[in-house]
């Protein structure tokens, strides 16, 4: 059954049938992904509506600068992978390799910054199992966040729910992105070996569909988590 003629697998009648099947297959898969993330978005929304003050309080502590830079990285990578499809179709192997590598590097840069952010979060106690969520510095006075929150009526239990969603949503997204980087690198290796020929561009096209979805999901996650509470200019690092 695996008899292949060029790009065409033996069980298809012609190449256009195969391409149609592969594209539609990826779209259906993206539908399942949307439903998958929809579940966690729904759960997040329920608690955000129940506990708006608590969510806003802890959201303010997240590093919105890194999230912003990361958004730029992902949007740019969506552009490079789209150009890569064109390069593949026209048989421009040099451009194809560069664009695929750029896409993978931008994705990796996102993950590197994200890892750095996780490390600082951990350092500041912004983890669901923490009993001490860092401190606030105002006019030179250090005050533990727990004291600030007690004064404002923010419950640590609810803060933990937010952090749980923060790690779940960014974590699931991160896993998706790592898989995406892996697939792009695999395509890069194929491009280097000159086996990603113009007639096989659909492999790259379906990968790009997945990549765009992971990108788009980040564009929902970012405001939901990072912009749920106010950020001061000081926090932005200016």
């Amino acid at each position, binding site marked *: *059954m*695996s008899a292949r003629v060029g790009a065409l697998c*033996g*069980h*298809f*009648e012609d190449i256009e*049938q195969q391409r*149609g*099947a592969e594209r*539609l*297959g990826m779209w*259906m*898969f993206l*539908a*399942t*992904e949307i*439903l*998958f*993330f*929809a*579940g*966690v978005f*729904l*759960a997040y929304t*329920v*608690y955000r509506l*129940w*506990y708006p003050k608590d969510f806003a309080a802890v959201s303010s502590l997240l590093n919105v600068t890194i999230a912003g830079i990361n958004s730029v990285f992902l949007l740019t990578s969506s552009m490079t992978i789209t150009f890569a499809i064109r390069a593949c179709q026209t048989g421009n192997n040099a451009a194809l390799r560069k664009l695929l590598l750029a896409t993978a590097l931008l994705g990796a840069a996102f993950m590197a910054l994200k890892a750095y952010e996780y490390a600082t979060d951990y350092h500041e106690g912004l983890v*669901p*199992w*923490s*009993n001490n969520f860092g401190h606030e510095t105002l006019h030179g006075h250090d005050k533990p966040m727990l004291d600030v929150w007690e004064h404002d009526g923010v*419950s640590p*239990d*609810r803060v*933990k*729910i937010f*952090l*749980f969603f923060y790690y*779940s949503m960014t974590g699931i997204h991160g896993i998706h992105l790592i898989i995406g980087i892996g697939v792009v690198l695999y395509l890069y290796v194929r491009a280097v070996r000159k086996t990603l020929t113009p007639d096989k561009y659909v492999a790259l096209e379906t990968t790009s569909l997945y990549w765009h979805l992971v990108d788009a999901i980040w564009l929902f996650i970012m405001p939901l988590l990072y912009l749920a509470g106010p950020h001061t200019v000081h926090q932005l690092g200016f």
Partner: protein
Amino acid sequence: MSTDYGHTAKSGASLDHHDSHPHGHAPSYLHDGYGWRSWLFTVDHKRIGIMYLVMILAFFLVGGVLAGLVRFNLVSPTGALVDNDTYNKLFTAHGVVMLFFVLIPSIPGVMGNFFVPIMIGAKDMAFPKLNLASWYVWMAGSGFAVWAILAGGIDTGWTLYPPYSSRSSHSNVVPGAMGVFVAGFSSIMTGLNIIITVHRMRAPGMTWGRLPLFIWATYATSLIQVLATPVLAIAVFLLMIETATGWTGNPVGIFDPAIGGDPILFQHLFWFYSHPAVYIMILPGMGVISEILTCFSRKNIFGYQAIAWSSVGIAVVGFIVWAHHMFVAGISYYAALLFSLLSMLVAVPSAIKVFNWTSTLYRGSITFQAPMVFALGFMVLFTIGGVTGLFLATLGTDIHLHDTYFVVAHFHFVMVGGMVLAFMAALHFWWPKMTGVMYSDFWSRTAAITIIIGYILTFMPQFYLGYHGMPRRYPNYPPEFRVFNVLSTAGYTVQLAGFLMSASYLLVSLFNGKKAGPNPWGATGLEWAIPSPPITHNFDKTPVVVAAPYEYSLNLTQTGEKADVR
């Protein structure tokens, strides 16, 4: 495709490879390679279907034994066999095994894999490797579930409701949930593959209006699998993480109301999948019944369009009824009213199917071979299950009947009386095509009747028990309920006898069954236009479809041959 009946009289199985080339050139899929490697690394949709079949039958045996232990424990009002803790684990394991490892993959995994490409005239599924992967992923999921059971079981019921499951239960919730989570991905892969195959792989002339109704039903099922299963995945994922935070001694309350979580949210997410999942379990069965009723009454199907679109209707409406499982869980009255109304809407497409099937039977030339007996049993039992479902959809009666044996009887009528009988019907209908041999006519009919009688005896008394207040999942009950529980257990043994009978004659047929020939039932589908068992690529050359699927009045197959030459 010429129909060669020269082999009909000859006995001796097609599994014997000395006679593996009945039609000259290509070997049948069973003889295209031997040894375990040729099976475990195959991408042939037919072999993958057979691998699903073997494992599903094994799990059916496990689930059936667990059901037997539950039933025999209920012979005595104080529990005849096991202590209460073990009883909880038994019915939970029965539920998990039967739902996720038998019913959900049963017809999509076996008949869907085997027959969807053949019935639309394709050489294979659109994504053969993904198809094989789905089997392995499913096996991995079942590995987690078996681990959970062997490590001491789960005592939460198959619904895994928190906060009990995440906080109080000291049983193996996480491996069990992991099994459900992983098996779900296999379900998505199969569903996705079938959808793309139906969209893109149809032979010339196989328009949507000429698709067999089994394909329509499987297609609708696949839509549910693809769109609902991810939500279960995320619900179970959150449940597992919440349980894990409990282990750290610093719990987070996603579903735990003591620390700010909402247990009803889990129920919403869970039933958003698990209610459509009951349509995953019944819709393919309905497709099978449509194939069989028309074939064995030698009449064109009545209301093709109505049956086809009612499958899609069930799939769509099935998505907006989930909260009827939660009428007494504390949702608002208005939500409950709305979901009660919507739930009743599902009865409409289901009833459309039953009425059309009945009209198909009307004045047909009905013969009662085993597939037909199972199919008729399905019609009766499914209708009872469906109508009692309306009692439960009605808000007022549900408050009385909720979590009683009435519910147990209702969904067993649909799941067992519906899907298991449909699976048996499909197995008997397509057995000659899958294996190339025919089973004993007498014993198969006897087994079918035995199973149906045993079935009614098992679950009819439970309606009475439930209506009079016996709660589900309780190991003990007042002594006046004993006679009905004993009747129910007696019914279980009758069913067991029937299933053992089926297992025997099907196994025997493999070794000395008569050759079936390509079209033993004189049916019209594309699958009957090729040799039994089919060759690896299904068709020597791509078939051209010229007719609607059920032209029994013209005695015409879909390729324009004479259907019944007996």
